[in-house]
Structures are given as C-alpha cells and as structure tokens.
C-alpha cells in the first residue's frame, strides 16, 4: 500500500516535467512580449499547483486501480479460448465476439465520462452558452459517440476491413450533417472529436485494439491494432451534431404546436 504514495510522488514529478514547456511558453510570452502584470497572479499559480497535484493523483490512481484490471480484462475478453468456449477457434465468425462489442461500447462510454479534458470543454461551453448547453448533455452525447465508434472499430478489426472506408464515409456523413446542424454547435462538435481521447480512454482502448489484433486469426497487431482512436475521435462529432439537431427539432415542434394552439384559440 505504501508504494502507492511513493509512486504518487514520482507521478507528480513527471507531470511537473511535462507541464514545464507550457509554463515556460506562457510566462515567457507574458513577461517578454505582453509585459503586463497578470491579475490575480497568486490565485492563478495556486490553480496551476492544484492542476498538477490533481493530475498526479488522477494518473497514479488510474495506474494503481483501473488500468491493470482494465488491460487484463481486454486481453482476457479477446482471448479466443474465452470467445470460442468449447468450439473450434478457426470457426469463429464476427458475431461470436458479442462480449467484446459490449465491452468496447461500455468502456468507451465510461472512460469518456471520466475524461478530464472533456469535462473542461463542457464547463467552458456551458459558461459561454449561458447554460444553453448542459455539461451533462454534451458529455453524454460525446460518450455515446465514443461508445459507438469503439464498438464499430472493434468490428473492423475482427472483420479485417480497411480503416479508410469507415473514416472516409464518416467524413462524408459529418459534412452532410454540418449542412443541416445549428450554426452555434458546429465548432464545438468538431472540437469534441479531439478532446475525447486522452488520459483515461487511450490506454484502455489501445490495449483492447492490440489484444484483438493479436488474437483474431489472420490479423497483425502492428497493422490492425491501430485505428480505434480514430473511430473514437470521429463518432463524437456525429453524435454531438445529431444531439444539437434533435434538440433544435424538438424545440421547433414545441413552438409549432404552441403557435397552432394559439391560432386555434
């Protein structure tokens, strides 16, 4: 148990090291180019220290508790002997992997809800939109997108179909949706693709991809293990655009029925 606290100190030192270039850039530009005093400097520095400590605790906690178990689980679930049971491994078809699809969907959803960068963007979007975009609404829309994306990405690895088919059709779909989506959501939706795959999601999803590509007959882990992150970055764009279209359509229908009632009276 004690080693958790020792590791924590190392993780915090690592985090400080990672953040150093950013801090240098920010304060370098602030003091050399902008040459303006920063308001509330003490508060901002406290904020930075809290972010560092927070990330340290967060990463060490994930590494101690969730990653080893999650990774082991990804390998066990993709093990052909688990999937096939008493059947012949070579006779496996893509629908025999139903536990893997369910795990991909569930872990995609769950890790996205815990993703700190998505939380940050949701908080900002809620502030900027004056509460019109709920933090939970956005996060759940993104999480559903990631869940569907990773489940489909797993299907791709199992069937061995080319990655670019999916990504390019996804692009066409996103562009068509953009034509019909409300203007204020578009930039946020495109952003939500990039923020979802970060500290929590990448390690677990990468383990799932490499595990599958290593065990499905005929797949090469080096070539087929990649691509899940790409799915997880593309599908949230669709789900957020879809969520905005759905809420706009609902609003319009409500106002229409209200105006109809008023005109009837």
């Amino acid at each position, binding site marked *: 148990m004690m080693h958790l606290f020792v590791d924590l100190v190392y993780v915090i030192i690592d985090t400080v090291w990672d953040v150093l270039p950013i801090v240098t850039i920010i304060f370098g530009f602030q003091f050399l180019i902008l040459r303006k005093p920063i308001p509330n400097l003490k508060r901002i520095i406290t904020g930075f220290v809290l972010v560092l400590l927070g990330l340290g605790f967060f990463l060490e906690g994930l590494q101690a508790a969730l990653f080893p178990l999650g990774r082991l689980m990804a390998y066990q679930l993709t093990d052909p002997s688990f999937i096939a049971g008493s059947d012949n491994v070579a006779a496996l078809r893509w629908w025999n992997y139903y536990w893997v699809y369910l795990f991909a969907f569930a872990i995609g959803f769950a890790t996205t809800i815990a993703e700190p960068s998505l939380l940050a963007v949701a908080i900002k979007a809620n502030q900027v939109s004056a509460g019109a975009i709920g933090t939970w609404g956005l996060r759940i829309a993104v999480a559903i997108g990631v869940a569907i994306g990773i489940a489909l990405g797993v299907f791709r690895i199992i069937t061995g179909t080319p990655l670019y088919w999916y990504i390019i059709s996804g692009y066409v779909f996103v562009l068509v949706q953009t034509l019909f989506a409300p203007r204020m959501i578009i930039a946020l939706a495109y*952003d939500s693709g990039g923020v979802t795959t970060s500290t929590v999601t990448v390690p677990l999803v990468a383990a799932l991809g490499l595990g599958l590509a290593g065990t499905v007959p005929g797949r090469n882990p080096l070539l087929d293990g990649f691509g899940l992150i790409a799915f997880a970055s593309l599908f949230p764009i669709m789900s957020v655009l879809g969520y905005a279209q759905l809420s706009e359509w609902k609003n319009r229908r409500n106002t229409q029925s209200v105006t109809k009632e008023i005109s009837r009276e």
Partner: protein
Amino acid sequence: MNPLKAIWAALFDSLRDLLPIIVVIAFFQLAVLQQPIPNFSEITVGILFVVIGLTLFVQGLNMGLFPIGETMAYSFASKGNLFWLLCFAFALGFGTTIAEPALIAVAEEAALVAATGGMIANNEQSMESYAQGLRYTVAVSVGIAIVIGVFRIIKGWPIQYLIVIGYIGVVIMTVFAPAEIIGIAYDSGGVTTSTITVPLVTALGVGLASSIKGRNPMVDGFGLIAFASLTPMIFVMGYGMLV
C-alpha cells in the same frame, strides 16, 4: 455554502464521473469473466486517488488554466500585434505536443511498424531517429493547426470550410501514403491533445472570440482542438511517404 460542504459536493461530483468505469469493470470481472477482484484494498485507494485528483483538477482549471488563457487572449487582442499572437499560438501547439507522453508512445509504436514493414532499417538507431522525426512532425503540425485556428477566429471564417479542406487533404494523402502508416496517422490526430493543452487552448480561443468585435465566442471561439486533431493525420502520412 460553507467550504466543507462545497468540498464534499465537489468530491461527490468526481465520484459520480467515475462511477460508470467502476460499474463496467466490476460487471465484466464478476459477471462475464467470473473472477474475483484482485487487490481489493489497493484498488479502493486507487479509486480514492482518482476522485481526489479529478476534484483538484477541476478546481485548478477554474482558478488557473482558464483565467490565464483568457487573460493572455485579451492582452494579445488589445495589443493588436498579430505576429506575436501567431508566434504564441505556434509555440503553444508545438510545446505542448512535443512532450506529450501519449505521442511518445505512439511514435515508438510507429517506428516498430516501419521497421517490421521494411520501410526503415531494423535496428535501434534508425528506429529511434524515425520516432524522433515523427514526434517533431506531429508537434509542428499541431503548432500550424493552432496558428490556422487562431487566424480563423480573427477573420471569422466559418469553420466548416477549413475542415472540408482538411478532410480532402486526409483523403488525398490516404491514396498515396504507404498502407502501413495509415492506421497510425489516423490515430495520431486523437492523441495529440493532452489534458492541460485542451483547457488552455479552449480558453485562448473563447477569450479571443469574446475580445474581438463582431465575433461570437460560441460560433467562433471553439474549433482550435478540431484543427489540432486534423493536421497531424495529414503530416504523419506525408512523413510516411518521405521517409
């Protein structure tokens, strides 16, 4: 609200954010794989760490990362010096990406793929230089992405025009890039944006859009991250073609 109550509420929020992962892992471990949970006490402490960490992070976000990003956006806008703003944008994109641990991992993986596929010599030295080159490529592409994104906010261009160009770029590069690199290139878009970069860059964009007259922070302020996840795909495929 008294401070102790506020801390409890914040911790409770973080626990709720974490609950789905705990449920999913417990369900698959106990019901599907039918195995006991190993190291129960260690896992409990780990979960406690994650909850504390998330709570501190959100506090620090509102006290430090968001205000500094916005303050700098206002100062650059009031100073009106486009050159230094774009330099800052590039430095922020490049500097936060080059040290990103997820990128370092992906670059090493990519070097292994390249060596196995016979694209580079299968020895440690050429793999290391390949990974190094890839990291610099991605970091430069993220720097360029933030520059383009900041420029778009200033000009007020609709984001979808630039995204369409980016998508077309990805499709064209996919046709010409070696098959081995495509999966890694597509993934590299997602791994570049770290937990500290995202809040800073978002605050910068929103701050710029709110301090420039005629821009709407909701329509124009977001979108920097979108560029930062798109350009690495194009650049990594380009790297795969050249090296």
